[in-house]
């Protein structure tokens, strides 16, 4: 059982750490070996400036994952904050739920492009844009969970024992929300990465000198017609693989928490 999620996680972390060990200066321009197809020396081939595509891809993945972790954390935190706000009273709940509905009814990518564009693109724009578009799903889950918890006798009883609001949130609500937060974070993460790559590809995201997968893909477009397929194929495939590996880990973890709950309901009569 444990192997099912340990292996993808280890592969994932291994690749992430490897990408850190690579120095950015290793992506050097060497026009003598430009436009080479994949070989044993350059596994992913080289580009029109003679840069090694394997190193570029790994550095690109590093950036993607970092942005993914950062935005997933920020979105989850925003979700927690908003779900707690919505639990205060009915008016605030209405405001939060209408915001959730608004954001869920708009196409993700369009809102993302809009926000990033307004913020002037770049790393800051991308991170804020991703944060502001990925919170609704987790907020909805957390809000439902809090609503249910607030109905539980032990939470109501706590108030009658004279415990203040923050104490009840910290001791009664948070322990039950923690698994949801973890699952939420893990589910947002691959989304955030793909969306970052997408808007960068479209030219609204990171600036061209960053070694991002989106940049690599959009640059390679000009050379694809010249038959240099490896410029897009390997970086794209690597990104996809990373997402799939992580998704596997996420699903097992989600099942794990789901199973935990069904176990609690087991009748032992």
């Amino acid at each position: 059982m444990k192997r099912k999620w340990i292996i993808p996680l280890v592969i994932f972390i291994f690749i992430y750490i490897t990408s850190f060990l690579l120095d950015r200066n290793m992506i050097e321009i060497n026009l003598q070996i430009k436009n080479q197809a994949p070989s044993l020396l350059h596994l992913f081939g080289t580009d029109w400036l003679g840069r090694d595509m394997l190193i570029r891809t790994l550095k690109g993945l590093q950036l993607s994952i970092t942005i993914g972790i950062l935005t997933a954390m920020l979105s989850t935190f925003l979700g927690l904050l908003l779900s707690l706000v919505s639990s205060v009273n009915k008016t605030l709940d209405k405001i939060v739920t209408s915001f959730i509905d608004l954001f869920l009814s708009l196409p993700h990518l369009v809102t993302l492009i809009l926000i990033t564009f307004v913020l002037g693109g770049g790393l800051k724009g991308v991170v804020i844009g991703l944060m502001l578009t990925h919170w609704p799903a987790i907020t909805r889950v957390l809000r439902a969970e809090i609503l249910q918890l607030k109905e539980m006798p032990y939470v109501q009883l706590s108030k009658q024992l004279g415990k203040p609001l923050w104490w009840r949130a910290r001791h009664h609500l948070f322990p039950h929300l923690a698994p949801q937060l973890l699952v939420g974070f893990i589910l947002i993460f691959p989304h955030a990465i793909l969306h970052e790559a997408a808007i960068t590809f479209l030219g609204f995201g990171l600036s061209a000198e960053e070694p991002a997968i989106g940049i690599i893909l959009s640059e390679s477009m000009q050379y694809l017609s010249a038959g240099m397929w490896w410029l897009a194929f390997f970086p794209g495939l690597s990104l996809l693989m990373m997402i799939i590996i992580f998704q596997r880990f996420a699903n097992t973890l989600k099942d794990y928490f789901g199973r935990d709950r069904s176990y609690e309901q087991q009748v032992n009569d």
Partner: protein
Amino acid sequence: MNSKLMIKQLSVFHQQTNRILIDSVNLSVDEGEVVALVGASGSGKSLIAQAVLQLLPDNLRQTGILNYQSRPITKKDRGQNIVLIPQSIDALDPLMKVKKQIQSLLPAPHSEQKVFDLLGRLGLEEEVASRYPFQLSGGQARRILVAIALGSAAKVVIADEPTPGLDVDSKTDMLSLLKEVKASGKSILLITHDFDVAVDLADRIAVIKDGKIIENTLKENFVGKGERLFHPYTKALWQALPKNLFIRSL
């Protein structure tokens, strides 16, 4: 004696841990007899019903002999000769009208009149038959659940906790319904935590504790201070009832 339902050396284990939940239980229900299986929650009483009906959760394993009319219970018997009265209306299909529901569960012929007769017997209007389960009151729901058991050709009815958390009136109501089932000549295995219900309805009472049957005695022995009872736990149980010594028994 011709026993309708015979449970011999029934044990239930936890598959992984091998923990014993039911330990070599013997119990028989004779023709037209009501046997009550009384136990606290966690005593394993519901597991026995589940074992008889092959409804145990996947992680449990059962051993022992289960006989219907002196032959092993077959798959066909369950549902046809042995039926269960479920605890709540949730057991019905929420999207199907009561009439159709009853018809689908009863043996042929599936005539409308048969359903109406059955409802009439339990004091329900014909109009109730065209309702959906959620439109039924608590009392009507109980009648429908009992009606399905009553109308079936089954000789053995298992009632698993028929009075969970009901007030006195609803409890009395359910008891009179079960008496109706008894009067129709069916045998009943009544599983309950409620001593009053058991004493009121059953001919014989078996007490289960920690997966073992510690007492199996006629109802008549539950009198006075429980001098005619065998096991000290049963005695304590009897004496602790509010109508007996209650808190003075401790």
